[in-house]
């Protein structure tokens, strides 16, 4: 049963991710990404990370992607014009980048193969309590720093997006 669910959501995630690239219009890409996010969240649940799964949906799908869709609608973007290539100078990138990427994948695969598959006996579920406990004790400083990061990003976004300050 779990295997079936895994393959279902894995296929959904990969398919949606490919769809993100395949779509001509960014709005469709964004929607495809939302599907992918939800699939990944479902995978989180399979991994006993319930809290994180829900948070992933709330933050990513509920906030970040809404922002994307919002901006796309705000700018009322047209679909990508076909055949408009940036410059021929960048063609070599495809020649180099794709092999590099595949090489990377192969190496990751090799690494994965090296990872010992010993299942850990201690079963752990990512409850809100466990995460909160760890976040507010061991990771308190990074946590506070992220709040600073968010603040800076907030101000930066306002500065960039405002027409004239």
């Amino acid at each position, binding site marked *: 049963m779990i295997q079936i669910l895994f393959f279902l959501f894995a296929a959904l995630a990969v398919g949606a991710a*490919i769809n993100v690239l395949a779509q001509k219009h960014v709005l469709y890409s964004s929607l495809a990404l939302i599907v992918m996010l939800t699939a990944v969240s479902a995978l989180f649940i399979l991994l006993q990370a319930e809290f994180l799964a829900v948070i992933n949906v709330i933050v990513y799908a509920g906030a970040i992607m809404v922002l994307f869709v919002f901006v796309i609608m705000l700018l009322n973007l047209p679909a990508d014009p076909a055949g408009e290539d940036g410059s021929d100078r960048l063609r070599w990138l495809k020649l180099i980048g794709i092999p590099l990427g595949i090489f990377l994948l192969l190496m990751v695969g090799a690494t994965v193969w090296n990872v010992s598959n010993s299942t850990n006996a201690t079963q752990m579920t990512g409850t809100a309590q466990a995460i909160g406990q760890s976040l507010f004790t061991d990771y308190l400083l990074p946590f506070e720093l992220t709040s600073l990061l968010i603040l800076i990003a907030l101000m930066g976004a306002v500065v960039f997006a405002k027409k004239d300050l």
Partner: protein
Amino acid sequence: MIPLHWYLILAAVLFLIGVLGFFLKRNIITLLLSVEIMLNAVNLTFVAFSSQHGLISGQIFVFFVLVVAAAEAAVGLALVIAMFRNRESLNVDRSNLLKW
């Protein structure tokens, strides 16, 4: 029980899709979306390892990745708006003035 390998391979595939998207697409929003794909792939590995080793730290890290993603999306989209306002285009290859 699903072996760890499967998750890792899935994450690698997703990551590769993100990388490809970043290299092959020209729309800056699609580029940002590709970055989100990559981040999610990484999140998946974190959670997979976290569940494998029974350590909560991996999930904490996903938390931080989420925060960074949110910040990145906010600033990135602000830049997109500014860029679109100035150039009427979201093609990243058109904005190449910042160079030697």
